[in-house]
């Protein structure tokens, strides 16, 4: 009979090994904790200086990497990006994952783009930190890195093209809803995923805006998370309405959430009684504006956002800007833009869509 390490013996061996490893680890250095480390947050290599009078290089390979492909919002923005890239005589490409919560997939696309020798990467980040290693490697390989729509940590990119300042988005949503509610009543927020960076930033500004005394009769009772899933957003909206009979308004700063909330409201007894504002596309919301469920909502033109990002990338890759504060560049017929704090470029103010102007848009 051959010797066989019986299962209990084996388990003991595994446990002993584990304990040994633990002991070694504990006996080691005192411990690296969050408060004891100082991560160097150096910005991108400040070696090169900008050449504001330089020319746009031609034949630049600029790649767009949105949060997810097959998403109508990003398709519109990237079409705008293509317009910009074509205008500067570059080579356009769009790649991306099918799911907006596939951070590993998005990172591997960054790697692939670096491998393919792109001149610039324009990315809407699913996660603020996961992309950093790959993007830093890209920058080290002299690839221009521009983020748009959703930012990463500032030291992982050179320029961030923001649709509108987070502050303008947050505050204007509250202002829009307050006017519809006559500054009275309970309100709630229906957001996307709990971890979504842009939504959380906007919500922060919404909460700050509500501290103003003119909103004294309004109260934010709850923030619910619909995870950008239709059924979940429905159920969260139902929950909000049931939990608070005095709920008069909902802010849904996500294109998936607002159309789900609008679809639910338009088929329920709350239609017209509970106001809904948020960020939505004209095509998605057309039905609900026409049938009276929604009075007004906001967005920016994603096409212009993509276009601006494309121009920013081209200018960056041509050395005309380096992402430092105060630099300016021209973005075709969009005009001239100045870089602000932390490499941020603002497209402009959000646009308010309502029954009066919604038919002028097709995206």
């Amino acid at each position: 009979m051959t010797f066989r390490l019986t299962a209990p013996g084996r388990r003991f061996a595994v446990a002993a090994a584990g304990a040994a490893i633990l002991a070694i680890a504990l006996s080691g250095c005192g411990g690296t904790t969050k408060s004891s480390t100082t991560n160097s947050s150096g910005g991108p290599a400040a070696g090169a200086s900008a050449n504001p009078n330089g020319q746009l290089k031609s034949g630049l390979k600029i790649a767009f990497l949105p949060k997810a492909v097959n998403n109508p919002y990003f398709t519109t923005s990237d079409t705008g990006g293509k317009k910009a890239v074509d205008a500067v005589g570059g080579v356009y490409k769009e790649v991306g994952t099918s799911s907006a919560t596939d951070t590993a997939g998005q990172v591997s696309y960054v790697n692939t783009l670096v491998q393919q020798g792109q001149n610039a990467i324009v990315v809407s980040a699913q996660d603020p930190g996961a992309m950093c290693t790959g993007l830093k490697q890209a920058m080290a390989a002299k690839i221009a890195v521009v983020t748009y729509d959703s930012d990463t940590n500032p030291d992982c990119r050179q320029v961030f093209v923001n649709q509108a300042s987070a502050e303008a988005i947050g505050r204007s949503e509250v202002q829009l809803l307050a006017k519809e509610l006559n500054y009275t009543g309970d309100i709630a927020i229906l957001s996307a995923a709990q971890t979504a960076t842009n939504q959380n930033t906007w919500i922060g500004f919404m909460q700050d805006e509500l501290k103003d005394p003119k909103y004294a009769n309004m109260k934010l009772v709850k923030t619910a998370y619909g995870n950008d899933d239709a059924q979940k957003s429905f159920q969260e909206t139902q929950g909000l309405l049931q939990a608070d009979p005095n709920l008069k308004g909902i802010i849904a700063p996500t294109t998936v959430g607002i159309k789900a909330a609008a679809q639910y409201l338009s088929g329920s007894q709350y239609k017209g009684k509970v106001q809904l504002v948020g960020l939505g596309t004209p095509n998605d919301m057309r039905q609900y504006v026409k049938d009276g469920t929604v009075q007004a909502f906001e967005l920016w033109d994603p096409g212009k956002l993509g276009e601006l990002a494309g121009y920013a990338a081209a200018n960056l890759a041509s050395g005309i800007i380096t992402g430092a504060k105060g630099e300016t560049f021209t973005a075709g017929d969009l005009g001239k833009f100045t870089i602000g704090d932390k490499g941020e470029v603002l497209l402009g103010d959000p646009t308010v869509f309502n029954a009066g102007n919604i038919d002028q848009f097709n995206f």
Partner: protein
Amino acid sequence: MAERRDGAGPWAGVATARLGGLVRWDVVVALLLAAVLVYGFAGVDNFGATINLSFLIGNTMAVALVALPMTMLVVAGEVDLSVGSMAGLSSALMGALWNANWPIEYIIPFCILVGAAGGLLNGLLVTRLGLPSLAVTIGTLAAYRGLAQIILGANAVTDFPQNYLNLGAGRIGTTPIPYTFVLYAVLLLAAAVTLHATPIGRSLFAIGANREAAYFAGIRVKRLKLVMFVLTGTVAGLAGVVWTLHYASARYDNATGLELSVIAAVLLGGIDFDGGKGTIGGAVAGVFLLGTLQNLMSLADVSAQSQIVVTGILLVISVLGPRVARQIRDAVRRRRSAAPAPGAATAPDIPGT
């Protein structure tokens, strides 16, 4: 033909376990991998670049790690669909504990131990309560992911110490080998030796082929299965740590879908889902075949959607292939020898005749 009573699929008894048949599919996959690699080096720009290879290997590490114990588990006739959620839970814990100012040297072993605990729960439910592992691990898939969400909530923690992040994402010198590969190589060796050269490994094959016979042969079936589940959970916890350091981001939804990738790779590698057949080599070939294909397709600008279709087709072929081949062989053999049909030859004895 042995009657399967352990909840395996309806045709489990039809597939007679012959190592010869299996090895052939293993070899096919390995050859496929070699062919794809050759094509990549020769035909696709930038594939052979050192950085690209290191990306390829580094991004496949999590799946490759979990595929090792999963192979042993599937060989023993069980499955664990909760590995992705376990890795996510481990990652969420890393983030939460880091924010709570725990030293990282304590956090990492703790997360791995939590993985072991999760595997223990799975194993106890399957062995002590006798529940089918497929259903149980679907339940724990939801439960562990839910726990991760409760623990870390909305946060994404990214400020881990730089030297650990370098370990997670860096390469050894100028070679394409990431540091994490060293860890993988060690575990790979351990798994290969255990499964193919020790009595424990032989016991796993026996359990998978016929649980009752194994039991009567003196193998401690329940104990062994429990150990396998614990191992799977431990490695899943480790994979969560590796993932977090590699992508420098701890989120509750990390590694979502990892279980499907692992199972797809393991099945591609010729491991029979009903148990009793498979090799670690096949699993490794399957993992890297999938990873290489994805890398190649991305470099060749094949869209993400098309990549998904290719993965699905590969999966279907990987199960259909061996079965269809066997059926053809059986049909040919039947026609050649005018022997009675297999059904009559092996009809179970009618008691009392």
